[in-house]
C-alpha cells in the first residue's frame, strides 16, 4: 500500500467519524495553541529584554573608545579606557578588516550649546521651565545605517542622512524639559537653536562665540551611541566639531584631536564578541560591550522559555493522550474493518500505516489550527499588555509572525500524535485476521 493510498483511506475514515475527529483535533489545537502562545510570548519578551539591554542595537555590538585599552578591559562589559588615543580612518579600516567584524560605524560627538524653545506646545505638558542655555553635546551618527547602532526611535523619525537642520532629541532632553515619553510627540516639529561653540583668543583676552543653527526636532530617541542630548547627522557633527576645534581650547573641555569620538563595531554574532574585542584591544583601543549581561539575560530567559515550553508541552501531551484514546476506541469499533482489510490482503504494515496516517492527520490538523489560534491569543494578549505599557509611559511590545516557531509547533504536534498513535496502530496491525473479521 502506498502512502498516498494510506492517506486517502485515513482521510475517509477520519471524515466518517466527524464528531470524534473534530473533538480530537480541537484538543490537539488547544494544546498547540497553549504551547505556541506561550512560546511566542516568551520569545517576544526575550526580544524586548534584549532590545532594552542593547538599546535597540545589534546584540553583538561593541563600542570602541578613542582611548588605549586597560589591562582588565576584557573582563568587564563596561569601558575601562586608558590614555586618549586618536581614532582616524586608518584605525577604522584596520578594525573593519578584522575577522568576524560585520560592520564599523563612526561616531562623532561635539560640544554644543542648545537654546530650547522658550514656549513648548501645550500638548507637551512640560513641567519645567527652560529658558537657560544647555551646554551639552551632539552625537553624530551614520543615519543611513542606524539599524546597526544602539538607537531606538521612540517618537517621530530620525534626521535625514546628511541633514544640517534636522535633529533627534534624547529621552534625557525630554527630562530636562519636564516632558514625559508619552507626550514626546508634541515636541516633533518644534525648533531648537544649536550653537557650535568657539573660543576666540586675542592675547589674554578670550571671547566665547557660537555658530548658531536653527534645527527642527524630527524625532525622539533612546540611544547609547554616545553621550549627548541630540542625535545629528555625521556631516553636521563633523562640521560643528571642525568649527569648534579651529578656536582656542574651551575651558573645562579637553581638546579632542581624534577624527572620530568612537566607533561602533558589530561582530558576526554574540559568540564572536569576545574575540573581536580582544583583537580591537590588540589594535590599541579600549572597548565595551554588554556581552556578559546579554549572555546572562539570554540564559535566564532561556530557563523561562524552557519552563513555559514545558507547561505548553503538558497541554500538548494531554491532547496526544486524547489521540491515543480516540485511536484505541476506533480500533475497538473498527475490528471488522481491520478484518476486511486483512482479508483482501493488507499486511500488518499496511494496517499500521493507515492508523498512523490517521493519527498524523489529526495531529497535523490540530497543530495547524493550534498554531494559528496561539498566534491569535498571543496577539490579543500583546494588545492588552501594550495598552497597559502605553498607559505607564513604557515602550510597547512588538509581535511578529514567528514562522519557524509556529512551524515547529505544527511539526511537534504531528510527531506527538504519531507517537500517540503508534501503540494503537501496532495493536490494530497485530490483530489476528480471523478474530478481527469475526468481530467477536
Amino acid at each position, binding site marked *: 500500500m502506498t502512502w498516498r493510498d494510506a492517506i486517502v*483511506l485515513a482521510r475517509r475514515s477520519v*471524515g466518517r467519524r466527524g464528531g470524534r475527529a473534530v473533538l480530537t483535533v480541537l484538543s490537539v489545537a488547544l494544546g498547540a495553541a497553549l504551547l505556541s502562545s506561550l512560546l511566542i510570548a516568551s520569545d517576544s519578551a526575550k526580544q524586548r529584554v534584549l532590545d532594552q539591554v542593547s538599546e535597540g542595537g545589534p546584540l553583538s555590538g561593541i563600542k570602541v573608545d578613542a582611548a588605549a585599552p586597560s589591562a582588565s578591559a576584557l573582563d568587564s562589559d563596561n569601558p575601562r579606557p586608558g590614555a586618549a588615543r586618536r581614532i582616524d580612518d586608518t584605525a577604522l579600516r584596520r578594525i573593519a578588516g578584522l575577522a568576524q567584524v560585520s560592520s564599523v560605524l563612526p561616531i562623532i560627538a561635539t560640544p554644543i550649546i542648545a537654546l530650547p524653545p522658550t514656549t513648548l506646545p501645550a500638548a507637551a505638558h512640560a513641567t519645567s521651565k527652560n529658558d537657560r542655555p544647555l551646554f551639552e553635546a551632539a552625537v553624530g551618527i551614520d543615519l543611513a545605517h542606524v539599524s546597526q547602532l544602539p538607537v531606538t526611535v521612540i517618537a517621530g523619525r530620525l534626521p535625514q542622512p546628511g541633514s544640517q537642520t534636522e535633529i533627534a532629541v534624547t529621552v534625557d532632553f525630554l527630562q530636562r524639559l519636564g516632558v514625559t515619553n508619552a507626550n514626546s510627540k508634541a515636541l516633533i516639529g518644534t525648533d531648537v537653536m544649536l550653537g557650535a561653540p568657539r573660543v576666540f583668543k586675542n592675547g589674554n583676552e578670550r571671547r566665547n562665540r557660537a555658530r548658531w543653527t536653527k534645527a527642527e526636532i524630527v524625532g525622539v530617541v533612546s540611544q547609547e551611541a554616545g553621550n549627548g542630548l541630540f542625535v545629528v547627522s555625521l556631516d553636521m557633527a563633523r562640521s560643528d566639531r571642525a568649527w569648534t576645534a579651529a578656536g582656542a581650547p574651551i575651558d573645562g573641555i579637553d581638546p579632542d584631536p581624534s577624527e572620530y569620538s568612537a566607533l561602533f563595531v558589530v561582530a558576526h554574532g554574540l559568540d564572536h564578541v569576545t574575540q573581536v574585542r580582544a583583537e580591537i584591544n590588540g589594535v590599541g583601543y579600549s572597548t565595551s560591550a554588554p556581552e556578559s549581561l546579554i549572555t546572562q539575560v539570554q540564559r535566564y530567559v532561556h530557563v523561562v522559555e524552557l519552563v513555559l515550553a514545558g507547561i505548553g508541552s503538558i497541554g500538548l501531551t494531554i491532547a496526544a493522550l486524547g489521540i491515543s484514546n480516540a485511536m484505541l476506541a476506533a480500533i475497538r469499533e473498527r475490528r471488522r474493518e481491520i478484518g476486511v*482489510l486483512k482479508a*483482501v*490482503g493488507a499486511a500488518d504494515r*499496511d494496517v499500521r500505516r493507515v492508523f498512523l496516517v490517521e493519527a498524523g492527520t489529526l495531529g497535523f490538523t490540530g497543530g495547524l489550527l493550534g498554531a494559528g489560534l496561539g498566534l491569535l491569543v498571543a496577539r490579543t494578549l500583546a494588545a492588552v499588555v501594550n495598552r497597559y505599557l502605553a498607559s505607564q509611559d513604557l515602550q510597547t511590545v512588538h509581535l511578529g509572525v514567528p514562522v519557524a516557531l509556529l512551524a515547529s509547533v505544527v511539526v511537534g504536534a504531528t510527531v506527538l500524535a504519531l507517537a500517540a498513535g503508534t501503540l494503537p496502530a501496532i495493536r490494530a496491525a497485530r490483530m489476528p*485476521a480471523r478474530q478481527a473479521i469475526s468481530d467477536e
Partner: protein
Amino acid sequence: MASPADVAADPNERAGVAVHATGLRFRYDTPEGELVVLDSIDFDVDAGSVVAITGASGSGKTTLLSVLGGLDRPHGGSVLIAGHDLAQLDRDEMARYRREVVGFVFQDFGLLGQLTALENVELALTFERVSRRQRRARARELLGAVGLGDRLGHRPRALSGGEKQRVAIARALANEPRLVLADEPTGNLDPVATAVVLDMLLRVPVDHGSTVLIVTHDDAIAARADRRMHLIGGRIASA
C-alpha cells in the same frame, strides 16, 4: 496474483486439484480446555468446481473457510493451495497469499462504509501496488459485469443488500483469485437477490476460472453446487 511459474510448480494444480488437505486440524483454546473444531480431515477440491460446505452451527464450516482463506493457520496437517502450504506461511506470506490467491465474500458484505462501490473493489488491488489507473479500470470492468456500472460512486449505505453483495463479489474477483470463498453469501438477502447472487457465484468458475467454496445452510444452494461437503463435529460426514 499468483504467477504462471507458481501454477506450474504446483503438482496439485497440474493434476486439477485446487485444494489438497491432509490431516487438517484446528482447535480453539477455551477456559474449559481445548476445543477441536476441525479434526484431522482430508479432502481435495477440484480446480474450477463449486463446492458447498454445509453443516450445523459449530460444525466447523466457517473455521474451515477461515483456514483455507489464510485468516487462520492450521494447527496440524497440511493444506496445499496454489503451491502454498498454509501451515508453513508466516504472517507476511499469509497476507500475500490472501492478496494473490483468495477472494472473500462475506454474509454481511464486508464493504467499507467510507468508500464508494468503485473504491471498495479497488481496495483489493491497493495492497498489490497496482497503479491507480489500472485498478480503477479493473474495478469499473468488474462492477459493470455484475450490473452495477451505474452505481460506481455510491456508498454502501445507498445500495440494496443484493447490490452490496454484488459489489463484494466484484471485489472478490478483482485480484483474479484461484479460490473464491463465500461465507453464507445469501444469508442476508431476499429470494430475488439470492437468486441473482447465486447465479453469479456459480458462473465464476466458467467466467473467471476460479474455484468456489460456499458455506451455506441452504440445501437449495448446496444442491446447485458441483459437490457438497457436509461437516459434523469437525469431521467430513459426506462429500
